[in-house]
């Protein structure tokens, strides 16, 4: 066996080991959560950091999901069927409501919503809380 054949054999062995060790989608689907975590740990993931990240993303994406649903309701022109929400009659009232119910997860927090005027805040409130009176113009 010449050296080139030996090299080719080693490349093929590498490819075989690689495909055996890196799971495809079907294999991943069949894996339990413990097996997935084991794979991630073996692949160099710091599970403690990942879990902290997941908790953070769960809050963040919940806000994005609520906004997506609000947008879909508005585009469909359909209120969610609930009673008309009572809109706080001051800017401070809406801000207090947002802070109480959304905390740091409000999708609009990044847009400095506190500096918006009452009519804008009222529209945001109705978009997020639902009910008639929600804005129908573009975002």
């Amino acid at each position, binding site marked *: 066996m010449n050296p080139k054949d030996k*090299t080719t*054999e*080693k*490349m*093929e*062995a*590498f490819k*075989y*080991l*690689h495909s*055996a*060790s*890196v*799971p*495809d*989608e079907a294999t*991943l689907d069949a*894996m339990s*959560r413990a097996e*997935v*975590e*084991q*794979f*991630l740990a*073996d*692949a*160099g*993931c710091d599970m403690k950091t*990942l*879990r902290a*990240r*997941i908790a953070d*993303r*769960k*809050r963040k*994406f*919940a*806000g*994005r*999901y*609520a*906004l*997506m*649903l609000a*947008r*879909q309701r508005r585009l469909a022109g359909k209120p*969610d069927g609930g009673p008309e929400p009572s809109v706080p009659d001051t800017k401070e009232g809406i801000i207090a409501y947002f802070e109480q*119910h*959304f905390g740091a*997860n*409000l999708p609009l927090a990044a847009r400095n919503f506190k500096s918006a005027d009452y009519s804008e805040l009222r529209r945001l409130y109705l978009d*997020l*809380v*639902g009910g008639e009176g929600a804005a129908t113009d573009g975002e």
Partner: protein
Amino acid sequence: MPVDPDALDGLLAGRGGFEAAYEKLVAAAKALLQTYGGDSGGRALLRQLEAADVVDTAFDRLFAEGFSPGEDVYLLLRRHIRNYIRTVAKSVKERQTVRVDGDEESTRTYLQQTDPLEQSAPERALIIDDLEYCMKVLFRLTAKVKDDPQVLALVSAIIEGFRDPDEICVVAELTKPQYDATFKRMKRRFAQILAASEEDKK
């Protein structure tokens, strides 16, 4: 309506809730990055990406584009991940050589580099680099598994060209149950060494 973080658990209930689904998606992204990552163009960019960042990009796209009720959100996210990684892998093309003068030397180089049967200089360098990388990983693997004679025997048999489990059992002197357990251990050791080697390449 107020934001309910548990709503995401309902969305991914079929996959054990948000946490379990997110971990599985990170694993899927990691596997795709390991498969598509390389040394040239967009494939080299993939080596710089973190699997969890790719998953976040998929969630961003999911909520930006929306989805219909009843759609399997997990499969949708996985498709976004796959498409994103494939797009990045194809995003940067290799530099093309174009002949701009009548010089004999440049003509020869041009013909050599554009001959579809001839490997261009970058391609040759890439193959050599890949080869070095493969050899390095195999060398590391055989060095690291010396503490586990069964895994070492299994790896040696695979390097020798054996693939059939029955043949490997004979060559590595393993029973079938031993082979199964050893193969599992070998996969873990290889994945660990692969991850460490990829970190070195970043």
